[in-house]
């Protein structure tokens, strides 16, 4: 049943989403692709939309996936499921376990989790870029337009703070890439 799947899928995301907004993206990608809810391509569109609208990215993506799979009730289920673990854990810590996070065993678990999440986020970013540039790995075909656009956008995003002393915001990069997409894919 779709509501139960959404509930369990997004409870898992909410429970394991250490490492902030981007830590949740690999988890959401896992859940969404394993249930076959949404394609990899549609998922990147959703990430962009979630990044460009107010609110935490993780919550936005849950609402989006839930809505696309099962309408309003689905959106409500997925959003509640993704929020519930962090809500419950904070209450638990405040009421019962003020010292929980200082416990050496909990600390040991966190020492393992945090670098692992960084590795997973890095792999997700690298994989998304590779996939865009060379297509699927079973049938490699280099897309020169995508390679050039990746190089130019990365140069702008990472280079601008060094030259202009002013960082480009994520929304700024999404805006520029959208304009570049319209020009490159539309006119050429």
């Amino acid at each position, binding site marked *: 049943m779709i509501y139960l799947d959404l509930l369990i899928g997004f409870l898992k995301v909410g429970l394991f989403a250490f490492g902030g907004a*981007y830590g949740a993206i690999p988890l959401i990608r896992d859940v969404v692709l394993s249930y076959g809810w949404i394609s990899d391509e549609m998922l990147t569109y959703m990430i962009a939309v979630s990044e460009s609208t107010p609110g935490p990215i*993780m919550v936005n993506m849950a609402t989006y996936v839930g809505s696309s799979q099962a309408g309003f009730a689905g*959106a409500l289920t997925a959003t509640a499921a993704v929020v519930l673990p962090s809500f419950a854990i904070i209450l638990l810590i405040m009421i019962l376990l003020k010292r929980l996070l200082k416990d050496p065993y909990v600390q040991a678990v966190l020492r393992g989790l*945090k670098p*692992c999440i960084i*590795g997973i986020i890095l792999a997700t970013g690298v994989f998304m870029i590779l996939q865009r540039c060379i297509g699927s790995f079973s049938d490699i075909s280099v897309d020169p337009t995508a390679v050039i656009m990746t190089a130019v956008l990365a140069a702008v995003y990472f280079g601008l703070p060094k030259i202009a002393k002013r960082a480009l915001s994520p929304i700024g990069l999404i805006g520029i890439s959208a304009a570049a*997409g319209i020009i490159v894919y539309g006119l050429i």
Partner: protein
Amino acid sequence: MSILPDLFLTFAKIGLFTFGGGYAMIALIEDACVEKKRWITHDEMMDVTVIAESTPGPIAINCATYVGFKQKGYAGAAAATVGIVLPSFCIIFMISRFLDNFLEIAWIAHAFQGIRIAVGILILDAAVKMIRKMQKRPFPLAVMIASFIAMLLVDIFALRISSITLMLAAAAVSLALYIAKGSVGREAAGK
């Protein structure tokens, strides 16, 4: 204004006006809850941030739950948390009804082709920033590199291993190392 609606509206306003989530929201929450409303002190705000970094979920939600509970128990926690989620829920729900139709318009589809590339770069950037902040000691570096390689292989060969499995494995290794070190320490102390 009584406290429950006040909590709800204050956090709804924060939810409506912060883009990108995460640390951008911390600044707004600090401004509203510490400076203006004096619901929590600056030190408490620092505490929440530390707790939020060690617990799952968006920092903004952790903060909302914390402040709400401090002010008015469970009802306060619920009011603040629903408040911070509700605005983006409504916005995203409406967008999700229309995006498929939008994507049939050629120039919007082209724009999203470009945006796909930006999303990869943003995720890469988030990882790079985390690597810069992380402790450069052998254990975390080894876990990070091993997780990176494992996850990349999982993605490339479409293996049925979830990132949660990797995280549990990393946590288990770290815990086992800690316990092993402890027992070695006790033996040494016993002799």
